[in-house]
């Protein structure tokens, strides 16, 4: 079940109270919760943060799974202060982060969805959009410009929206994401899971040394 803005506002208000046990927190919180409650939306707007991470295309010929030690060379992170702009050129891709620090309780999950006003101008916000119960931190956003003009984006502006869902569960296990508790974008590691590793190992011994 998707939560409507009045329920989101109520949960945020409850979550701000001292003694809250497992609160929903989105901070900086909307300046006017009463206005949010009356908006009628089924989501809450989220702002763009001040950190951007580029892939350094010239450093590597391709992205490889299980490339030990390659991660530090792969990216470069920039701080863009409020009032400044980041130009995203057509065909370019950058990681950014939400301004808001988000904490989801055990019974809520979320989806990050772009805003149509940006989508119509060619800015795609996120492709890995699920946020699991128990998440804490700033969300990494994957921004790409599929339009034909460079787009100037400003930290602090509304960039996407968060749809919150109730979660049914019978245990207390929390999200084991590696991206918890961070305030800057992170690219993470690519690793083969055990089954894919066994399949790869089994066939790599039979494969020809070079591609035909």
């Amino acid at each position, binding site marked *: 079940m998707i939560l409507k803005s009045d329920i989101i506002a109520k949960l945020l208000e409850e979550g701000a109270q001292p003694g809250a046990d497992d609160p929903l927190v989105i901070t900086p919180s909307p300046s006017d919760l009463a206005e949010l409650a009356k908006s009628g939306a089924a989501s809450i707007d989220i702002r763009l943060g001040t950190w951007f991470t580029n892939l350094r295309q010239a450093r590597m010929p391709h992205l490889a799974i299980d490339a030990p030690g390659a991660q530090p060379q792969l990216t470069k992170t920039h701080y863009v202060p409020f009032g400044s702009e980041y130009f995203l050129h057509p065909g370019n891709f950058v990681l950014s982060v939400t301004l808001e620090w988000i*904490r989801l309780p055990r019974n809520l999950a979320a989806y990050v969805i772009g805003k149509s006003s940006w989508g119509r101008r060619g800015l795609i916000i996120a492709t890995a959009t699920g946020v699991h119960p128990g998440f804490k931190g700033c969300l990494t956003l994957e921004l790409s410009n599929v339009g034909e003009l460079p787009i100037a984006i400003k930290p602090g502006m509304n960039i996407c929206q968060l749809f919150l869902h109730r979660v049914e569960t019978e245990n207390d296990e929390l999200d084991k994401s590696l991206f918890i*508790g961070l305030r800057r974008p992170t690219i993470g590691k690519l690793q083969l899971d055990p089954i894919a590793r066994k399949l790869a190992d089994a066939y790599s011994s039979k494969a020809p040394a070079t591609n035909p």
Partner: protein
Amino acid sequence: MQLEIADAARQRLITDLIAEAQRVFTASGVTACADGERDLIYERYKLVVPREKCKCIADILNAAWKAYRDSTLWQDNPQIAEKKDLVLKELVLKNLELFEIEQILKEQP
């Protein structure tokens, strides 16, 4: 002998110096840190969230030290506890950014 004189002089002046420092501090309008505020921030850190509407940076830093020295912090969440220093650093820096944003918005309503 000289040290004894210095000690005696310091002993006589110390109360007045503290009172004067307090007067200058109060007159400057700087918000004083308070244990109660520090504990409210620390309670939010236990939930792995920054606190809104902090009174001063000193409270944030004092809460950060309290959290850093608390060996039981986040023990119910091993995934966060195992990278406690990193997460705490990120949390405190986010809290400072949040404090700055609130100050900017307060000055420009």
